[in-house]
């Protein structure tokens, strides 16, 4: 099936989210849609999937113009979509989930589960999915859940499959498997629209690349382009993908974590006997797939809760058992994982957010009185220093872009003298330009002789910043390896392999995106 978008325009008030966008997806190709957050990729796909109506332009399927008034129309026309956040009912079986919304019946309103089971087995066999139709979805690993989503689309005879940031939740090995599946699907004539901002994956899988920026198509790119070329196309200016971390000079141990164990509200052991050191002037990255205890680890450091055992010493002082306030006052800077929920008060202004943990201290308060003048001059200073793009310092934080919100959080946390910086997912959801900025700031803090603890699920980020990488799996430390460890090895460690095994296996089975042989690593020329 050939799919064409012609001159699609979508406006939200005065904002033009999609400006005259045209693109063609040929049968059996992987068409990558590359762009930063806010470039208009998701808007375009929502138009294509019938979730919102375009203001202008048309959708053409096999040279026939079509009009979609909802996802059902899009599905009927052969378009399937796998959302970034899965649309599955956790307590249903695979078969029940696949049936949902298009339940086959055998007269008298009885569900025909058997027919669906058969279809799932058929598809599963054809593409080597290895999915049991009777498994309950919540018990399946994330990678398999994603396959269930793909099966859902295929059962409805999708000939064009939209994958929205499908690799965000996968380990590198799972990503590799997904790419294998994508190859098989295209071999059978299914087209795939692959939305992502991960350049490495684009180069590994794409047949054709369309780059979007600020609601427009800014160009087509060849899969053989270097990552730097793609990035500059995406951002509109030359960017360096890997910030030059310079040389670090780790000194004495400042943070010593020993036997840290955390049990959460549901009595689950989420952090299991974790021990590590961070030295002054060193960046330790805690890597791992989302949900392996990293979040709980940092929350325990900050005193945010859970039942905690063990010891966390910062320059000799015990932090465990202290309140968040005391930990912050002890000189810990904290950049939380979810800046919207934990980092900012959305309905507060930029100026107020910049003093969120300093508001009751000199110079921002005198006794019980806030000193608005100081708060405002502080804000003006930080906004300049951190290049925060806000209308004014009275702009509400919730109206800022993700990158600028993160800059507000960073600016606040770095604006006081630190003994330790803890940053969780500091660049999640940020565009390439902001990532570069955040990384530079973190490195600057390291060069300031501050010990830095970063939690990241992005192996690229871990490699770019880390002096040492600690990999967590199911709450425990799999191993601590040097910062320049190969991606494949790290990937296997995130799946629970001990370092020695990981090194062996990685040598034997390199992946497309993780190994130099496939052109993933070696060619980042500085622009």
């Amino acid at each position, binding site marked *: 099936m050939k799919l064409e978008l012609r001159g699609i325009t979508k406006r939200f008030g005065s904002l033009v989210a999609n400006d005259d966008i045209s693109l063609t997806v040929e049968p059996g190709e992987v068409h990558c849609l590359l762009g930063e957050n806010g470039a208009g990729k998701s808007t375009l796909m929502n138009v294509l999937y019938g979730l919102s109506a375009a203001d202008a332009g048309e959708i053409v399927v096999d040279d026939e113009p079509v009009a979609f008034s909802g996802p059902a129309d899009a599905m009927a026309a052969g378009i399937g979509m796998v959302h970034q956040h899965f649309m599955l009912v956790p307590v249903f079986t695979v078969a029940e989930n696949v049936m949902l919304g298009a339940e086959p019946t055998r007269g008298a309103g009885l569900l025909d589960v058997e027919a669906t089971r058969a279809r799932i087995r058929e598809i599963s066999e054809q593409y080597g999915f290895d999915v049991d139709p009777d498994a309950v979805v919540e018990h399946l690993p994330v990678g398999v859940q994603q396959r269930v989503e793909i099966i859902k689309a295929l059962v409805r005879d999708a000939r064009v499959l939209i994958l929205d940031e499908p690799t965000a939740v996968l380990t590198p090995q799972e990503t590799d498997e997904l790419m294998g599946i994508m190859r098989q699907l295209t071999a059978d004539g299914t087209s795939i629209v692959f939305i992502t901002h991960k350049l490495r994956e684009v180069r590994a899988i794409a047949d054709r690349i369309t780059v979007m920026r600020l609601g427009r198509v800014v160009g087509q790119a060849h899969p053989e382009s270097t990552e730097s070329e793609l990035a500059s196309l995406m951002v509109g200016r030359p960017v360096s993908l890997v910030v030059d971390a310079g040389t670090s000079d780790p000194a004495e141990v400042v943070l010593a974590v020993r036997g840290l164990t955390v049990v959460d509200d549901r009595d689950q052991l989420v952090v299991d006997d974790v021990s590590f050191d961070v030295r002054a002037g060193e960046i330790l990255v805690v890597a791992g797939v989302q949900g392996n205890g990293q979040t709980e680890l940092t929350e325990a450091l900050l005193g945010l809760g859970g039942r905690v055992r063990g010891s966390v010493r910062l320059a000799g002082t015990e932090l465990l058992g202290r309140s968040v306030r005391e930990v912050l006052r002890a000189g810990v800077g904290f950049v939380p994982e979810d800046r919207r929920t*934990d980092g900012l008060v959305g309905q507060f202004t930029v100026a107020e957010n910049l003093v969120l943990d300093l508001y009751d201290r000199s110079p921002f308060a005198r006794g019980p009185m806030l000193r608005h003048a100081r708060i405002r001059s502080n804000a003006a200073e930080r906004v300049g220093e951190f290049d925060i793009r806000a209308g004014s310092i009275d702009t509400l934080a919730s109206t800022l872009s993700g990158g600028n919100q993160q800059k507000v959080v960073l600016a606040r946390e770095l604006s006081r003298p630190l003994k330790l910086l803890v940053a969780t997912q500091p660049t999640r959801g940020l565009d390439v330009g902001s990532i570069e900025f955040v990384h530079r700031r973190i490195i600057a803090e390291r060069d300031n002789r501050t010990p830095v603890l970063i939690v990241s699920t992005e192996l690229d980020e871990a490699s770019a910043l880390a002096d040492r990488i600690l990999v967590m799996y199911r709450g425990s430390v799999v191993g601590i390896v040097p910062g320049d460890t190969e991606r494949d090895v790290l990937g296997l460690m995130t799946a629970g392999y001990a370092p020695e095994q990981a090194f062996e296996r990685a040598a034997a089975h390199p992946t497309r995106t993780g190994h130099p042989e496939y052109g993933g690593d070696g060619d980042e020329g500085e622009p």
Partner: protein
Amino acid sequence: MSEQERGTTATPGGEQPPQEPSVSHRLWRELTTGNAMLTVLSVVLALAIGGLLIILSDPRVQQAAGYFADRPSDTFATAWQSVSSAYAAMFRGSLVDFGEYSVVRAVRPLAATLTNATPLIAAGLAVAIAFRTGLLNIGAEGQIILGAIGAGYIGFTMDLPVVVHLVVAVLGGVLAGAVWGGIAGFLKARTGAHEVIVTIMLNYIARFLLAYLLTIAAFRRAGRSDPISPYVAESAQLPRLFEGARLHLGFLLALLAAAVVWWLLTRSTIGFRLRAVGFNPHAATTAGMSVARSYTLAMCIAGGLAGLAGASQVLGTERFLSSGISGGLGFDAITVALLGRANPWGTVAAGLLFGALRAGAVTMQAETGTPIDIVLVVQSLIVLFIAAPPLVRAIFRIRVRSRGLGAPEAKGWEA
């Protein structure tokens, strides 16, 4: 990062700390960006529908409608006369009566309005400050009752020097209310018990506590068998502001309370903390603020404000304690805070409006026979329209220009 740094020059910031926008500028923005405007329109709309009800319930209009086909103009004329006379009576009863011969008598309706508004403002502030901390204080009623008990008891039992007695009595009322509100805050902070449930239950406890107290000797008026307390001593009474009206010093205390709440919320570190907790408890926690302490503190302050309302009722308006001392003021206070959008000065304005409606309704019924319940319907309609801004926008065809900041309707029960 050369590109990025060059980009900086175009953005705000730099040497001069930016000035705060002027008051008039902010007022203008508030009036034009929707929230204040929507409130005004809601009131107008509610009064319009109230007018419709007045017409429908007026027997003279019904009579004229009987021969509508013959002389339609009669129906319209009667209808107009019915509404205009009812609302004119309401105006006379709540603001100024130009028909009176002396200035004092002419503004007496205004005094009645202010007297009615006093407890509504104080208790409205109690709901508003809790709301800004993310708590729904349904317990103003109970807190008013406790405030009245505390202030009243000190007022009619103790024997203290002139000024001291009044101060002690008012503070006693504030303290009693603060304790009552604090219980709900403390339970929320410690056990997570939902403040809505707890405050509703505390309302019942307060009501029956008062009923019980009025049966024991210490609270009974000598020579009376009905549940009514002695008059508070003259030294503990809030002085009348001028002769011939019930308006008393409590009104000025309520205005003072509004100023304090305004200062607390916008100018103090405590208010910064309470607002942060109210908007986003997660971010507040991560920034080292204690959400539990903030909840307890907010409910104590709220209870104290409602306690002030109770004290003002018993020391100023009624001057004795009876089981009807609050009479649902605490529930009207929720409406007042909602109408005032949980803003101290908005609450004052809303309290004045409701005070006027209450005062005017009495005159309206006396002069035109229009049922007093119409005013209750108008009050309820105001709340309804405030709670459903899209409805008002649709009726007046207003486009959404900005998002409301913490407008009460934007938050649900879990707020």
